[in-house]
């Protein structure tokens, strides 16, 4: 178990180094000089340019620049935003809770709906319910979520007036200092009446939009995994003990069927963060996805570089945890069987 853990961690390290390399090279490849990008079209005196270049270390050989960059990252220095002049890690840390909150709610939505739908579809295979679940899953899997978000806004917000159009909070009626950065928790801590409800209302549509593709994936995976497990001998053994169908399906079958589903859920982190870019753009959600897109239009390359580095790093980390978790829930691997 411990050796497996070490091996898995060791496999992750080269990926991290390569990631640093890629982000480093990518930004060097961007056409135009970073100083000129900063000074704009006004021009700059040659001696001042040389000084700036020296300050940024641009006069050093490229490999030294890379080592400098890698060393900075290892010490938590992801560079400084050109636009806001604040450290990128700091900006990211402020915005990331918003993305995390959204991704978490989206995933909960997907799991809470997807697993039961998949289980029931498998148990009632061939039924109308099964067909409906599979049709909806196909549509969800194929959904351009940016359009889905616009449709929901159009119908739920504009037409029915049920949910807010955008943002995380109704800032006209409520104001409170961020404590945790998670609006659901901060609104409760603020003790302002209705603040929590407002936070929930803002979360509903973005969560649905972000959770749609994971929902489809989870429902499909649960169904096929369940179908496979339900024909296993041990399910027949459980039934032969005279256990209730609920216990046979919900305990004996589901416990086994969930093993691949948990892996698939873990692998949705990348999908969720990629989806967050789109969802946050549609709903003006102040998270790292929207920030990333904005840093492109502002030509804030250090922010783009650091942001991609951080987001990818998080995905790699979560995938690592999922792999270890997979071992933990699967006794066959846990005991080296």
């Amino acid at each position, binding site marked *: 178990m411990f050796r497996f853990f070490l091996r898995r961690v060791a496999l992750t390290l080269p990926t991290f180094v390569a990631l640093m390399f890629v982000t480093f090279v990518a930004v060097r490849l961007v056409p135009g000089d970073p100083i000129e990008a900063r000074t704009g079209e006004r021009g700059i005196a040659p001696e001042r340019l040389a000084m700036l270049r020296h300050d940024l270390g641009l006069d050093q050989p490229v490999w030294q620049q890379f080592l400098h960059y890698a060393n900075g990252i290892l010490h938590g220095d992801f560079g400084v935003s050109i636009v806001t002049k604040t450290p990128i890690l700091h900006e990211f840390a402020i915005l990331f809770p918003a993305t995390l909150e959204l991704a978490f709610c989206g995933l909960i939505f997907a799991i809470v709906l997807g697993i039961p739908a998949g289980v029931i579809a498998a148990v009632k295979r061939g039924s109308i319910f099964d067909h409906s679940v599979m049709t909806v899953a196909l549509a969800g899997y194929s959904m*351009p979520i940016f359009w889905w978000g616009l449709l929901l806004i*159009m119908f739920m917000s504009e037409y029915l007036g049920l949910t807010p159009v955008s943002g995380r909070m109704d800032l006209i009626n409520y104001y409170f200092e961020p404590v945790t950065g998670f609006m659901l928790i901060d609104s409760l801590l603020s003790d302002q009446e209705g603040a929590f409800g407002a936070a929930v209302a803002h979360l509903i549509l973005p969560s649905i939009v972000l959770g749609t593709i994971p929902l489809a994936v989870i429902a499909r995976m649960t169904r096929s995994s369940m179908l496979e497990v339900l024909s296993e001998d041990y399910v027949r053994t459980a039934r032969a003990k005279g256990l209730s169908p609920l216990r046979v399906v919900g305990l004996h079958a589901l416990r086994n069927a969930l093993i691949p589903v948990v892996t698939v859920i873990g692998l949705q982190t990348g999908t969720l963060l990629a989806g967050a870019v789109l969802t946050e753009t549609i709903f003006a959600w102040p998270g790292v996805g929207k920030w990333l897109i904005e840093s492109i239009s502002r030509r804030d390359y250090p922010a783009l570089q650091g942001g991609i580095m951080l987001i990818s790093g998080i995905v790699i980390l979560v995938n690592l945890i999922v792999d270890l978790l997979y071992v933990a829930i699967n006794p066959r691997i846990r005991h080296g069987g």
Partner: protein
Amino acid sequence: MADDPVLNATAAAVPADALVETVPPEVSPLRAFWSAFSENRGAVLGLAVVVFITLLAIFAPVLALHSPIEQFREHVLLPPVWAGGEWAFPFGTDAVGRDVLSRLIYGARISLGIGLSVMLVSVAVGIVLGLAAAFLRGIVEVVVMRVMDLVVAIPSLVLAILVVAVLGPSLTNTIVAVTVVYLPRYVRLVRAAAMAELSKEYVVAAQVAGVGRLRLMFVTVLPNCLAPLIVQAALGISDAILEAAALGFLGLGAQPPTPEWGAMLADSREFIRSAPWIVTLPGLAILVTVVAINLMGDGLRDALDPKLRRS
């Protein structure tokens, strides 16, 4: 839904020894494929829609009533016919008076074009890299597979954004970006399939017979890896279309006035209230196309590669 419930349920339910298989008469592989494929109603429906959209794309100049970029300034934000518009603009017009239907038809060209180009390039590169990794082993395999691991680790859209940010937003760069994102699937698939084949006797036999390495790679082994590759390629088209539309929507893909479906949606955002049709129609076009390709791909998978059956 993709498979006949009664038939499959029975196959799973009846103890294997209770049914004695009757040997089917010999049929050509193509005919066998078609009979397996056409059994799946969803797949046939998907195929029909794909053919329809392909025809629209090919004959866009003939079928479209107007140029996709011509602005009819006197007909701005005209609603579709069913909402009181004019027959000259069946699906209405957008904010600068361009015919929505014509733009959608031309958009099919772009989306299918992107999907196909991405698929062809990534399949070709994937075959070369995958076979190289499987045959050459050693450092080549390590480098190729580690790079693929890295590409997979970065969220798809974020990676595409990085590529576009470096190369600049354009239709061509969209294709490059999406190809990079989806390359690992093909490389991994080809490598895994080739490795599985390499351990079989016919490969050893060919080696003993003195077949050259290149011939062994592309003529002896590759054809036996094709079934999962074709399935993945079909499903890859739909993913590429979605990814490219997302880039277009973010303003990082096709640039105005190109009638790309994602970019059309981006333009429409401010008209959510006033002109719902220019929001609804391009997205519907994307959804229908992607669903159709996925249905077809699922059917292909079930017919070509029963091992991969998801259910």
